[in-house]
């Protein structure tokens, strides 16, 4: 495949699309409306009625799972995992499956739009606002923004995925000496990537994302880590979990979860230990201390300040339990401790991460199978560029607020939704004269932008993605368009319905228009040429899944196989020599506010931050509560009885930062002093399926951070008030059958 041919040419199709979808109806005579023959020029290899499969990469989160998309007469029908991609080995999560509903979403941005801030991008009838400028004008706008502003007045805010666009924009900013693009995502914040990397750096002396080898362990202690849900690379970790349970047919791996609210991951644990929020690190220290004491060795520096009795008191885990668990951990052949989730989102999150790493070091599993590694660095990557922490985002927002930024480009992230309200980004936007959004969907940030130049959906785009976590081998996932776009066939000539353009193409064209250093630094005809220029670095590598000496051949293989990855085990085994020498103060967590209840926000595992506009994800029940289409607040039934509230009663939850109203879900597996709320709903834009549905728990959060600068999202104390209103939650489970007394209040 030469670089002159892009698949867009022969994927050009006609007659398909909006009005006359080929399969309209089922069993009625309406099937006469069927129209066939979408192609004007049918590719030689395509037969009617037979599918064509393309390998690409899932863009729903930043894990970089490989996909195989099945297409049929120019339409994408189904995505499945790419069995060769080391991240997911042919598997997908629910979000990946629903990516088609993003591609064919009824609310996407129709084309380049100049619009006044705050104006909705779709009308009350849910019709998308029409494009009101041409792409040439759009490119001119970008070119002007890049050339007429001072370099330090230009800012790029990007999503979490370390993809080709990030490389391109990094090159672009380097060429004009602008500040490097900032990357951010709510998931990265919930995962506390900064904290994890800082802990690795502090204890192991090497920077990188930790890689927990669940699959080869025998015993897993997870301190709040929701590794089966959205944490780092859920599909890969689920595979690890599967292997933990079934690797050894004679001995099933054991799994203990410490957390205040039973998560989906906690539900799969053999033991779920409801500890006081913020004491996870302390428990890890106590376990370590008890293990050392039991073995009769002298306490290393790490455990010098640990008072086991007081930890047992404050955490709510009895000393007996702690001793039993410590024994279990010490006696296991391959024990593994993981920290994550709400445990790190505390004021003492870094201490927790480090205490857990110390526990691993104590059983000497750093760099060993079934232990802790650092994730392999992706091909082409010089280092892992982590997304910004909240502290850095705070600084960035302050910079916007100060008015020193004249133009802000936003791509791949929806910061107005994904940042706590207490970080006043919305206000800061007022001091930015020009905001350009490259959003595919009409999200909250796009609504506040001056220009929306929609990027193509992941399934329409070229690209690659450097895999940061999950794969044991160094992996570069490759993406290619599987369809040329969404078309309508209202007239004889099919019209593109969503006139999106790859942001990389827009930036490259703008760079040429802007001229000067920019034009000479980014002399690429289009996105594909840029990608090829990057892939040249891999030519001749023989330790990969395939190799090629010539770039066009390599690109063809790259697209055909959905990326390039090494066949070796590239996990980094760091040195653990100093891991036990850091002393801890064993400080309990600090909480914000004087409410009586701990507040634990968690990511709704199916929906996550950007799934709300996909009706199928809305309708897929939450794995623990089975609630669909809305958000809820989880309260222990005893607490609910004390408050005099029942299922579906609307309560007002208020913290120091704000208040929200949500329906009560009496959740039996949560501490009575804790309430929990899912993150994922509460959109004020983002299409008809998302808008006006549920609430965003971020409205309750302050900008308090942990020691590493990640948001201390679980550090709020809140109070609850009954409102007297009732709003029925839709759930899959039958309340009559699942709960006692036929679900009636006793």
């Amino acid at each position, binding site marked *: 495949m030469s670089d002159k041919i892009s698949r867009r040419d022969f994927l050009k199709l006609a007659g398909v*699309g*909006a*009005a006359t*979808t080929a*399969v309209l*109806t*089922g*069993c009625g005579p309406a099937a006469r409306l069927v129209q066939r023959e979408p192609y004007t020029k049918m590719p030689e290899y395509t037969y009617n*009625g037979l599918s064509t499969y393309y390998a690409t990469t899932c863009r729903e989160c930043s894990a970089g799972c490989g996909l195989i998309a099945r297409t049929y007469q120019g339409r*994408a*029908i*189904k*995505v*499945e*995992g790419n069995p060769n991609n080391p991240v997911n080995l042919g598997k*997908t*999560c*629910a979000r*990946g*499956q629903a990516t*088609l*509903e993003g591609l*064919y*979403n009824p609310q996407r941005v129709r084309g380049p739009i100049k619009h006044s801030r705050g104006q909705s991008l779709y009308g009350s009838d849910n019709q998308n606002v029409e494009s009101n400028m041409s792409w040439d004008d759009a490119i001119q706008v970008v070119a002007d923004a890049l050339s007429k502003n001072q370099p330090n007045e230009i800012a790029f805010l990007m999503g979490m995925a370390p993809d080709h666009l990030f490389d391109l924009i990094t090159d672009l900013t380097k060429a004009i000496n602008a500040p490097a693009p900032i990357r951010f995502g709510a998931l990265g914040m919930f995962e506390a990537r900064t904290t994890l990397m800082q802990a690795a750096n502090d204890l192991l002396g090497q920077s990188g994302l930790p890689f927990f080898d669940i699959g080869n362990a025998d015993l897993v202690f997870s301190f709040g880590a929701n590794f*089966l849900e959205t944490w780092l690379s*859920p599909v890969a970790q*689920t595979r690890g979990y599967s292997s933990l*349970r*079934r690797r050894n047919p004679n001995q099933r791996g054991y799994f203990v979860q410490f957390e205040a609210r*039973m998560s*989906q991951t906690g*539900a799969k644990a053999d033991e*779920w230990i*409801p500890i006081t929020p913020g004491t996870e690190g302390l428990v890890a220290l106590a376990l370590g201390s008890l293990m050392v004491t039991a073995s009769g060795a002298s306490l290393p520096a790490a455990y010098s300040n640990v008072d086991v009795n007081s930890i047992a008191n404050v955490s709510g885990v009895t000393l007996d339990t702690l001793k039993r668990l410590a024994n279990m951990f010490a006696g296991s052949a391959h024990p593994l401790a993981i920290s994550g989730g709400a445990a790190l989102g505390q004021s003492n999150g870094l201490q927790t991460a480090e205490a857990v790493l110390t526990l691993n070091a104590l059983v000497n599993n750093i760099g060993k199978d079934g232990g802790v590694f650092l994730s392999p660095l992706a091909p082409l990557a010089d280092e892992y560029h982590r997304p910004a922490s909240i502290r850095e985002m705070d600084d960035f927002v302050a910079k916007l607020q100060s008015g020193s930024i004249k133009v802000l480009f936003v791509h791949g992230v929806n910061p107005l939704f994904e940042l706590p309200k207490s970080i006043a980004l919305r206000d800061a936007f007022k001091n930015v004269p020009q905001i350009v959004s490259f959003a595919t969907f009409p999200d909250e940030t796009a609504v506040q932008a001056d220009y929306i130049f929609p990027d193509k959906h992941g399934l329409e785009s070229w690209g690659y993605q450097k895999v940061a976590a999950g794969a044991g081998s160094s992996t570069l996932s490759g993406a290619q368009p599987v369809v040329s776009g969404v078309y309508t066939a209202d007239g004889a000539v099919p019209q593109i319905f969503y006139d999106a353009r790859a942001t990389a193409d827009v930036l490259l064209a703008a760079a040429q228009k802007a001229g000067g250093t920019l034009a000479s630094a980014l002399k690429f005809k289009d996105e594909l040429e840029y990608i090829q220029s990057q892939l040249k670095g891999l030519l001749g590598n023989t330790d990969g899944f395939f190799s090629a000496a010539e770039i066009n051949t390599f690109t063809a293989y790259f697209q055909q196989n959905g990326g390039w990855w090494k066949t070796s085990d590239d996990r980094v085994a760091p040195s653990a020599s100093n891991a036990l020498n850091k002393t801890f103060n064993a400080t309990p967590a600090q909480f914000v506010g004087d409410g009586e209840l701990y507040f634990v926000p968690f990511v709704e*595992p*199916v929906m996550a931050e950007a799934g709300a506009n996909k*009706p*199928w994800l*809305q*309708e*897929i*029940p939450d*794995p*623990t509560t*089975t609630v*669909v*289409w*809305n958000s809820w607040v989880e309260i*222990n039934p005893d607490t609910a009885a004390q408050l005099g509230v029942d299922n579906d009663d609307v309560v007002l939850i208020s913290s120091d930062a704000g208040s929200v109203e949500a329906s009560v879900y009496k959740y*039996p*597996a949560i*501490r009575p002093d804790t309430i929990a709320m899912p993150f994922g709903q509460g959109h004020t834009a983002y299409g008809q399926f998302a808008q006006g549905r549920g609430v965003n728990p971020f409205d309750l959060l302050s900008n308090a951070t942990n020691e590493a600068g990640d948001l201390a999202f679980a550090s709020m104390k809140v109070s609850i008030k009954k409102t007297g209103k009732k709003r*029925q*939650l*839709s759930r*899959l*489970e039958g309340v009559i*059958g*699942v*709960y006692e007394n036929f679900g009636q209040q006793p």
Partner: protein
Amino acid sequence: MANDLNSPVKMNMSQDAQGKWGMVIDQDLCTGCQACVAACSMENNVPFVGEVDAGYGRNMQWIRIERFWSGSFPDIKMTSYQPVMCQQCHKAPCEPVCPVYASVHSESEDLNLQVYNRCIGTRYCANNCPYQARTFNWRDYQDARQRPELVTLQNHLNPDVTVRRRGVMEKCTFCIQRIRHTEDTAESENREIRDGEVVPACAQACPASAITFGRIDDPTTQVSQAAVTSRAGHLLEDLGTIPHVTYLAGGA
């Protein structure tokens, strides 16, 4: 109360190679992540029904992942996630009650078929299904004339699966379109179907590989071997429906 009522029963009922296709679900591995539900819906053109209908017990998903609670705080446990779909009974209670042969047994594949175009919507089959595995098209969920948002969303409908309209019963088919497709491919290449060649959408997606699918009349297949382990059991086996979905008990 109702917690332990439908855990798989072990009755040591001999398999006797009754049937052709079978599925084994390892509840120990199922993490309840709902990927199978999404994959199934995407593959089989299952519509979404909206918040109100979904809350009223009208979800159309062909798989539902059940879970119960046992004990009370702090010693509370969630019972193992249990994906329930049509169990493709060898002796299915849904079949004889249909007055028009819409719910009918496939003699060649030993599956329960639902012939959508034959269904007149008496819903007797759904009443008589002990597993409550059937879903009914209460409305024209797939009609873009009534739901304008579908105009674009319809593009990903699978042409191999009939799109159902209102008044029709439907259920899991073991992805029979994939069985047929694979059979056709094997036939055109003049060979038998290989073990693991037919993969339903749910098994294909499952990140934990908790779902195995294949021929149960051949003792060498993965699914046959998994089905004879000591953890294996069937849902409501005492009814004698001879279901073709085997559950491997969780937590052991």
